[in-house]
């Protein structure tokens, strides 16, 4: 038979009802990956972009050249941030299920990607996250009440009710506005970094996207500009294996790692165990040093697993094995750091339980306070007339006119502003 072309449609190793299978995942032994100087040429990172930087082994011992040698108090802070992120997520998910917020996205299982990276950066560094790096907010010390108020679109909402839940921003904390459109922040982070270089500043930028959204052209824009201008930026690609229902092969991960795209653009690529707090910290520190020394950008692929649904609107049992997360070979970032601290003699189950309880109390108290500033179903409410503000710096005539039109409708009771139960939607 004459060979003919045939459309290859990638399909994941396991579907619902089948046994999870992660045999496609190339793993390196902990400590095995080489750690080059930060001045390394992109072409010399081919191996680094194929291997997996790991520090923590199954025996909870930190090994190899990438061990960042953090002091136990720093590790404990990292554990606390990751645990708080998880408890916050769990709480917000429950609140969504109760119909008190419209939507939520958890980062369960991926906490190290944000928390360890956030800790390895400096407060003046500018962060351009996607919607699954709430751990960055936690690291930078954001009051949970602020995050909850955003999700509630209430009177203390930083977005004044204009964005869906989780689309936070934090000017003074140097965390950019999260967009509902994917990957847009990636080339913007490069531009921010270019400006830092133009101005001769010491600050760098870091951005995060998923492996799924790396298919957007914005990824290419970011890589090209970062390479051309040697921008002081860290480009994080969070490969959590799933983009809603499509597995990482649909994003192009079947034959090359995502990190390997880096050398293709002239940017060093590193593939790291995203559930290994120490490894994520170490590669971020390395990439930050590179950027700060003017050597240029780095692409980091974080290999992790989206243990939760894509969002509260998603039902992963329709497209992947229900217990797939349990088979994930790189474990749970919190359990692994906890195990490491215990092995060091710097932590215990009792202390962990105490910490968990303390953080639960913090989350509960935060929620109580946030609720007092209003919910979608109960006051106090934001003034709807504020919706006309910030479209432009100065309100143009046609918007002034529309605002007055709405004011009249509200005063006449023509527009019904009584709360709409979220369950009522079609």
């Amino acid at each position: 038979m004459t060979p003919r072309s045939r459309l290859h449609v990638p399909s994941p190793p396991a579907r619902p009802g089948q046994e999870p299978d992660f045999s496609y995942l190339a793993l390196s032994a902990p400590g095995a990956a080489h750690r080059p100087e930060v001045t390394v040429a992109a072409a010399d990172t081919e191996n680094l972009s194929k291997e997996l930087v790991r520090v923590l082994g199954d025996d909870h011992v930190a090994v190899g050249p990438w061990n960042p040698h953090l002091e136990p108090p720093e590790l404990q802070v990292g554990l606390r941030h990751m645990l708080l992120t998880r408890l916050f997520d769990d709480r917000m998910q429950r609140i969504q299920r109760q119909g008190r917020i419209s939507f939520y996205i958890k980062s369960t299982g991926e906490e190290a990607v944000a928390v360890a990276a956030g800790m390895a950066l400096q407060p003046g560094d500018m962060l351009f996250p996607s919607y699954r790096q709430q751990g960055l907010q936690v690291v930078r010390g954001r009051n949970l009440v602020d995050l909850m108020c955003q999700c509630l679109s209430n009177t203390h909402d930083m977005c004044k009710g204009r964005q869906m839940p989780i689309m936070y921003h934090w000017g003074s904390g140097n965390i950019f506005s999260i967009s509902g459109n994917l990957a847009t922040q990636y080339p913007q982070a490069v531009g921010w970094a270019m400006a830092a270089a133009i101005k001769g500043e010491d600050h760098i930028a870091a951005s995060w996207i998923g492996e799924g959204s790396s298919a957007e052209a914005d990824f290419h824009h970011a890589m090209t500009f970062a390479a051309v201008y040697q921008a002081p930026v860290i480009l994080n690609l969070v490969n959590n294996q799933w983009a809603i229902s499509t597995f990482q092969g649909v994003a192009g991960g079947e034959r090359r790692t995502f990190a390997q795209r880096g050398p293709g653009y002239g940017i060093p690529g590193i593939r790291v165990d995203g559930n290994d707090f120490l490894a994520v910290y170490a590669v971020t520190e390395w990439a930050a040093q590179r950027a700060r020394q003017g050597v240029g950008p780095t692409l980091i692929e974080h290999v992790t697993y989206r243990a939760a649904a894509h969002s509260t609107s998603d039902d992963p049992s329709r497209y992947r094995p229900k217990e797939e997360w349990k088979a994930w070979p790189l474990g749970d970032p919190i359990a692994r750091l906890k195990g490491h601290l215990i092995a060091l003699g710097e932590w215990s189950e009792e202390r962990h339980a105490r910490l968990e309880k303390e953080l639960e109390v913090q989350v509960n108290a935060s929620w109580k306070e946030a609720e007092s500033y209003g919910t979608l179903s109960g006051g106090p409410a934001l003034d709807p007339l504020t919706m006309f503000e910030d479209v432009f710096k100065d309100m143009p005539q046609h918007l002034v006119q529309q605002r007055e039109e709405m004011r009249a409708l509200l005063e006449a009771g023509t527009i019904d502003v009584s709360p709409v139960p979220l369950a009522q939607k079609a």
Partner: protein
Amino acid sequence: MARMNMVQALNSAMDVMLARDPRVVILGEDVGYFGGVFRATEGLQRKHGEHRVFDTPISEGGIIAAAIGMGVNGLKPVAEIQFADYIYPGFDQVVSELARLRYRTAGEFTAPVTIRTPCGGGIRGGQTHSQSPEAIFTHVSGIKVVMPSNPYDAKGLLISAIEGEDPVVFFEPKRIYNGPFDGDPHKPAVPWSTHPQGEVPEGHFTVPLSKAAIVRPGTVATILTYGTMVHVSEAAVRLAGIDAEIIDVRTMAPLDIDTVCTSVCRTGRCVVVHEATLFGGYGAELVARVQEHCFWNLEAPIQRVGGWDTPYPHAFEWEYFPGPARVAAALTKVMEAS
């Protein structure tokens, strides 16, 4: 006849066309195994195979560009863009390529691509899951722009779009996927099974493009609208107690000017209603056409009702959404003026 909601009707249209025409392929994010985030392609991959219905990378520019290439090579691609709010990365491919291919090659190359995309607000989607960007596309010469308001039309129009030889951007008002929402979110949801247009033939049939529908005959005014706002306008007519004719434009471009202008010339009064923002909106085109053709018949200035000229705010969805009260007020105003 079967009872279908709009999602089932769209699914049925694609199912029928996949079976009838081997050139039809469906592509988009999550449309394959999963069946789409709104379930519009549920079961189609299983039934027709993964070479006919398949998932794409998250790249709207890639989806539309690949669909163009497939179209040039003899296929009839139906591309899903998960939300209309996500279509912009593919905008250049629509505007500079898809729309102009026939023209710039004097008909030698064409790409009969249908782009399906859910639009509109009312599901607490905030500014990135609620937009109605139809006017951005009606301004582009060379693409047809369609928006159905019920399951029967959704199926018939989608089949027409797929069977046609021109590219179509097919907007699906997602708030009415499951029922004919009349603009009052406090009322219990109404399913399509209670609505006459929820009766949809199971097999092949078409509703022609560029043909408006008179949804409600009336005598004293004409409401020109489409999508979700058809149902809101019906509620507004009841609310105002005014015998207005309601015209569902259905295809925004190319427009059925005759049906529109015949009605307005007869009633002498006109209200234009859409969910999209007002400034530079599609309503402006309707108003311009009406005044060109009906100026000497008009008894009152034409009124427009639309979304306020701001991004779609998450918290103020129902203050923003142009509900029946605002449409009724415009109707009353157009009746009072003389």
